[in-house]
């Protein structure tokens, strides 16, 4: 055959076309007895319905965890999970933590040393020693 092809899989670019929110499920655990769960209980009563309505793509589950501190757990599309203990927080602070989980991707927290992440090597072309001004010894 004069020409054969090399099969590959096209790589996803989340956000270029459709944007898929990476947080797919959030579990809220509260306690009716513990004092540390007061803020969480207030959040569940007053702010959770609005949060759930604003984020229809997140599956929300509320369940009691008696005798424990309140905790929010987020599950992400890459399979990882993030948990935040919201003990002794006010309802507004709990909201902020829920927003934090919503906006996170499931990746581990790491510091990016490079300013740009891209599939393309460069925009203006990579320098080559064989083109352009030749250095004459």
């Amino acid at each position: 055959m004069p020409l054969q092809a090399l099969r590959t899989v096209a790589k996803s670019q989340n956000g270029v076309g459709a944007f898929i929110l990476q947080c797919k499920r959030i579990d809220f655990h509260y306690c009716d007895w513990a004092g540390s769960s007061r803020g969480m209980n207030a959040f569940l009563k007053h702010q959770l319905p609005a949060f759930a309505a604003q984020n229809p793509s997140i599956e929300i589950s509320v369940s009691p965890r008696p005798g424990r501190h309140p905790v929010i757990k987020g599950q992400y599309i890459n399979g990882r999970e993030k948990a935040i203990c919201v003990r002794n927080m006010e309802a507004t602070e709990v909201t902020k933590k829920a927003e934090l989980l919503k906006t996170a991707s499931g990746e581990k927290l790491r510091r990016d040393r490079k300013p740009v992440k891209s599939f393309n090597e460069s925009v203006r072309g990579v320098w080559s020693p064989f083109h352009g001004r030749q250095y004459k010894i």
Partner: protein
Amino acid sequence: MKRVRLDRWASQLQPPRNPRLQVQRCAFSHETTTLPRRRETEQQRQYITQTQWQCQRRTVSSKRKASTATALQEEGNEVEADTPEPSSGAKKPPTGPSPLYAPSHRLAARSAKLAALHARLSLPPKLPLQTLARCLVDPSADPRTDYNNAPFAILGQDLLGYHTTEHLTCHYPRLPMSVLFAAQYAFVGEATLASIRAEWGVEVVAAPGVEVDAGLLQLKRQVPGNSIVEGTGRRVKDMPGVRVLGARLGGGRRNAEWNYRRGVSSRVVFDDEFGDLIGGEPYAGAQLSTSASEDGSAVEADEADGTTSTPPNLPQSPDDTEATTVSDASASFVRAVAGALYLHAGAAATKTFHRDHILSRQLDLHTMFNFTHPTRDLSRLCAREGFEPPVARLISETGRLSRTPVFVVGVYSGDNLLGEAAGASLNEGRVRAAAAALRSWYLYSPSKVEIVLPSDVEGMAAGKGKVWKPQVIDVGEIVT
């Protein structure tokens, strides 16, 4: 003195005890009293659905569904009660209650996972949750075509393939057939669609059934060939007599015979959109071309009935179906979503779906070429197009006598540079330069102003702004 009739006297103070009255239960309560289960009215069900949070709640009715048997019974009763109602699309069979192998439509409407998936994909409200739930049911979990995603998957595969092909042929008119097959696979092939399913956050069940969440992909998973069979110490694929998935190739086509030379032309005629052999039957119960005697009997049976009756070898329950792989079922699911979107929301919505989820993916076409004789091909191309014969010239070099020389070679047709490349030897540089020249020929793309896709001007999109311009059609591949 008359004896006090306690029941009468008490009844004046208490409300009348009407046994037909249902106990008004608070929607947020968690009490689990053992009341006789009464048929909930439609109104009450709606009220409960609207007021409750989307979380798991154990009410009296769900408590009694603890076992699969009672759940099946109840679903069967519900299906029986629903058959007199006018059902859209006449999905339910006319005779008796049919067993459910996947969650019913009522459960689908209450599934939080399913609703979240619907919102995550930004699907239009025209596509109901119940259809999305049906898209998640693979034929191996439920073989009946009215209950699984097979019809949607066939339609969706055609649509996705159509949009991908028109994009590739209009943007890259000179792409050779083998690379076109590979690019098609890269965009809408099985591996890519399986990856898309994972990126959408759709999980797979361990085993299908009525009690699983309606938002999970349901399929009967194939036992891995490497797993050990119980009792023996051997792997499944080493056991004698086991049928390998994909061994039923061809489906009776000439293409699949042992001595048939499968070239590119035969793939265009016989094979699927990726140039792969079409395995088995296109859909369950399809009439395959077999020997003449069997053909005659099958045709006679159809004509006598007037309608196609189910052939006896068609699986009727999940116990009879063949297990599939997760990759296969994932691809079916994504195709089914496209097909269902077309049926409910129309062609424009499907095209937008294809653009957002398929075309937005990144694919480097220039890395997909694998040349065998690029210098010969380039020479034939120049002869065909009337260019001057290609000549390779050394542009620059370094380190000729060292361990790591670099030769930059350019292929010229007269004074025009067709392609250049660097290599570790003179020959390598010449061959790479010819390959670069061929790539630049094949990857020619007309300017964006000139490109008009057929779907922009056909069907519902006709007369809506875009004017048809004839697209570039290439002479053909290079014959060597």
